[in-house]
């Protein structure tokens, strides 16, 4: 269970999250929608312990994320906008380095399996800077899964992915979503969001504007309700 209560975050005079409440049960994929500036990425960064909230609480699988950051990070896999990989290291070297940081014992076979899963095993010896953005995203996805996390946090993971890579992403989300594990994903791709989500949350100006099971969401109604914001989705 991931639980967020009364979360507030401002950057200077700009309030980004304004008392946001949210809960995501284990075993589910929750998809965050909303226009630019709604607070999706900020929320994900707080869940990832990269950003400290001004106030409010974040509990991930019973762990207070604001107090036990290291413990939370042990249990989350994160893909942000940027792939966050070293350009002058090879794909294999990057994953080996991060495996070491996550304390993964004997990571070689696991890395090979993950690279096969994201269909990047043929580029294991290539330097990351020589890969396309979409390929780097696939490697970032493999990095996020290295330590068998309990929660996947994905910030617009579909950006830059071709159709095949998007199918891989959907497959991984589907496989990952299982008892004890959960996925929280932001996206501007409404179709993809509805396809992988168990529940949909729409953020608007730092608050939850809608929280429904994906099966209950009517795309047309959603688009009508958030006509302007969803223009960007």
């Amino acid at each position, binding site marked *: *269970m991931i*639980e967020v209560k009364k979360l507030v975050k401002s*950057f200077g005079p700009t309030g980004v999250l304004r008392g946001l409440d949210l*809960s995501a*049960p*284990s*075993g589910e994929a929750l998809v965050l929608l909303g226009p630019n500036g709604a607070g999706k990425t900020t929320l994900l*960064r707080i869940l*990832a*312990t*990269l*950003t*400290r909230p001004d106030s409010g609480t974040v*509990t991930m*699988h*019973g*762990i207070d994320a604001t107090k*036990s950051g*290291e*413990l939370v*990070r*042990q*249990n*989350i896999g*994160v893909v*942000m906008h*940027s*792939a*966050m*990989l*070293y*350009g*002058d*290291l090879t794909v294999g*070297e990057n994953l080996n*380095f*991060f495996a*070491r*940081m*996550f*304390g*993964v*014992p004997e990571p070689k076979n696991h890395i090979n399996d993950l690279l096969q899963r994201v269909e990047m095993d043929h580029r294991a010896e290539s330097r990351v800077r020589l890969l396309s953005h979409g390929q780097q995203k696939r490697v970032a996805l493999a*990095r996020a899964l290295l*330590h*068998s*996390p*309990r929660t996947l946090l994905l910030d617009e993971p579909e950006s830059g992915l071709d159709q095949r890579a998007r199918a891989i992403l959907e497959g991984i989300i589907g496989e990952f979503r*299982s*008892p*004890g*594990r959960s996925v929280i994903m932001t996206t501007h791709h409404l179709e993809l969001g509805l396809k992988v989500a168990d529940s949909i949350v729409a953020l608007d100006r730092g608050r939850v504007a809608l929280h429904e099971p994906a099966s209950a969401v009517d795309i047309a109604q959603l688009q009508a309700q958030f006509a302007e914001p969803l223009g960007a989705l």
Partner: protein
Amino acid sequence: MAESQSEPGGVEKPGGESDGKARQVPAQTLGLSTRHVPGKKSGGTTGNFKASLGVIWAIARKDLLLEVRNRDVIVSIAGFVLLVFAIFTFAVDINNKDNALLVGPGVLWAGIAFAGVIGLNRAFALEMERDTLEGLMLTPVSRDLIFLGKALGNLMFLSISIAIALPVFAVLFNLVVFRFEMLVIASLLVIGFSSVGTVFAAMSVRVRAREIMLPMLFLPIVAPLLLAAIEATADLVHGDSWSEMSQWLQLAAAFDVVFVIVSAVIFQFILED
């Protein structure tokens, strides 16, 4: 809504939220991670210590490998310090031994300090270009180990640059610097310089005018260390004994002890939004 009471390493049993009670199953049953993560503050065993050293070395080794491949930092430091030496040889008649003895130690460490600032700027700029510092911060490694790893990397770059610059300095200024005492002086300087420099480079990396901000913030802080290195080197080139330079070495050592600890503590607060 029932709040989970899961403990670290445990996993909520499927449906555990529904009855409001925190039920635990061993993480292994779901194939989830319960492994020890280096850098966790709980622990304190020899194994933890070794694992922490392993993490520090892995971060520094990664920086060294990147440097071997793109040669950004060491070339910047060594190139700049050699230019400083060359310019001073034009400005001062160093063929006069008294002049060389008078200005040589200051030129050596001032040159290395200025060049070191350029190297520190570059080292963190490389981490920011691809957001890799955030990638590192997303690992469960404690911030103080990240600091020590980055500081060790900077220490290695600075040491290599000094090793390149020192023979050139010795030839240009015709001073005897290859003595054991110089190894002690240089070691004390690079330890303090790298630790404080790593913190200030991390602080200024998100600032727009970081090329200016870093030296303006950093150099006044390391002034006592530079003074100690310059004075100890002056004693060395004059052929003074250990006892005469010991007060400066003690100052440098005290600076290192205090600032390595302070830097490690500060580092964990400066990376967050």
